[in-house]
């Protein structure tokens, strides 16, 4: 499913002395089946954009198209249930939204709200618990008895159980240990491919953006400055600096390596693995030419 933002502006607390402009003339196209990373400095408007993607916020200017549904500034939008079913959001620290007596009931909350039959909702919950690597017997436990990392996984399962067509992730791994981070990000990527999802990842981590996304959008002071392929975005270091961003670790390491050895590795490496391979290749070639 495709999402399109056209000239979107948003102000919090409009018409009061507390009015705060968060977005100005944002144009963003999220094609169906893409994995888009939205990056930007703190306070650049990333999270505000994210909430427009399933009409939790309605733009104060401009238009948001979610599939065929049009959300327009100043026009009352009725019955957003369908939009919310199609676009699932995993918020930052999603474990804060857990509330039910058991993990099973909590995961089933979303699907049941959208009219999925009970049997089917339960089947999804059982399947997701395995997929997310939660221990056996967790379904009957209270979500408040779990560890922080497990609560996070349960909350994510609660969103995935809705089987959305678009999955929006807001810093889904903030505060997790590196291994847990990797596992969860890999799982999202796997789902993106196997279920043919459209994924939007809002993140501070340039590494995650470089590793998983096929499109990157940079937000800066409420504007969407550029969109492009990760390779193009992350090789333009000056541009990144203008928006107070840094290239991912692997790109920085590659640059240092090239400077010190005088070897050229060619295209930028978006992940450590690719960089290692490129360095190995360059070294092999270098030793041959000696």
């Amino acid at each position, binding site marked *: 499913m495709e999402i399109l933002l056209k000239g979107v502006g948003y102000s919090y607390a409009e*018409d*009061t*002395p507390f009015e705060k402009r968060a977005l100005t003339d944002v144009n963003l196209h999220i094609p169906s089946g893409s994995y888009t990373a939205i990056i930007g400095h703190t306070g650049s408007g990333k999270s505000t954009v994210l909430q427009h993607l399933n009409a939790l916020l309605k733009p104060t200017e401009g238009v948001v198209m979610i599939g065929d549904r049009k959300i327009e500034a100043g026009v009352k939008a009725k019955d957003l249930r369908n939009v919310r079913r199609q676009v699932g959001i995993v918020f930052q620290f999603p474990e*804060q939204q857990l*509330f039910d007596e058991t993990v099973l009931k909590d995961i089933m909350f979303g699907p049941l709200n959208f009219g999925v039959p009970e049997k089917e909702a339960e089947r999804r919950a059982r399947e997701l618990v395995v997929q997310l690597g939660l221990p056996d017997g967790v379904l009957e436990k209270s979500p408040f008895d779990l560890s922080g990392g497990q609560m996070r996984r349960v909350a994510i399962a609660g969103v995935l159980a809705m089987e959305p067509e678009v999955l929006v992730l807001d810093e889904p791994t903030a505060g997790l240990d590196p291994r847990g981070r990797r596992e969860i990000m890999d799982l999202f990527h796997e789902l993106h491919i196997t279920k043919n999802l459209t994924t939007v990842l809002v993140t501070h981590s340039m590494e995650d953006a470089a590793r998983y996304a096929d499109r990157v959008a940079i937000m800066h002071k409420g504007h969407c400055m550029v969109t492009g392929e990760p390779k193009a975005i992350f090789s333009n270091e000056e541009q990144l600096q203008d928006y107070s961003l840094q290239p991912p670790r692997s790109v920085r390491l590659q640059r240092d390596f090239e400077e010190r050895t005088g070897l050229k590795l060619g295209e930028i490496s978006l992940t450590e693995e690719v960089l290692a391979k490129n360095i190995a290749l360059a070294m092999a070639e270098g030793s041959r030419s000696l």
Partner: protein
Amino acid sequence: MMEKMIFGRFIPGDSVVHRMDPRAKILFVFLFIAIVFVANNAWGYAILLGFTLLVVFLSKIRLYFLINGLKPVFILLIFTFFLHLFFTREGDLLFSFGFIEIYEEGLRQGIFISIRFLVLVFMTSVLTLTTSPISITDGIEVLLGPFKKIKLPVHELALMMSISLRFIPTLMDETGKILKAQMARGSDIGSGPMKERVKAVVPLLIPLFVSAFKRAEDLATAMEVRGYRGGEGRTRYRQLNWQLADTLSLVLLAGLTAVLWYFRA
């Protein structure tokens, strides 16, 4: 809608009223509330209204904003106005239509009570709009100081007040966040039959309670770690500073009382 509510909110600013000592402002408002009842005729109420508008003007709060923010209060105001209009049966009959009869005294009472109400709401709003919650608590703590003699835990009460005030915005934020998260999961608060709505509140309240308790615990630990041991012998970081303007404000109030007394019927 909640964003537009200004009841109990503080707007930082720089005006004579903002700079006043919180003790003076609190005293001023309390005395004013008493003085309002001195007025009993058109002159008196006109003076009260003028005086209130003067204070609003001095506080540099836009009148439009004040009126807009107090909309929910106006519903109550209109209600009281009509209550007096319809149910006071004194003086000459002005108007009658079927069972509705409006008397002169009713109209008078309706207008007077409305002005009294308006003036009180404006004045108290100016207090909270121009004084940070922390200053208000500081002021109250000092003003209630004498009651320590009768074993009233003044410091603890003030601390409780400032902590709860401090956490109102935090909890509001959190409510918004959880509400959005549950809305994204298809929960629909604010529509459907009553029974469904009540049920939809549960997924909002439980996470909110959980996090509020967690916050309280963290705060208690943080305070203990930093050696908090109650008000005994505690010095103040923010010193209150009574100035000429504060004395003048109370003199002004005395003047107002005298004028009101003079015009009193």
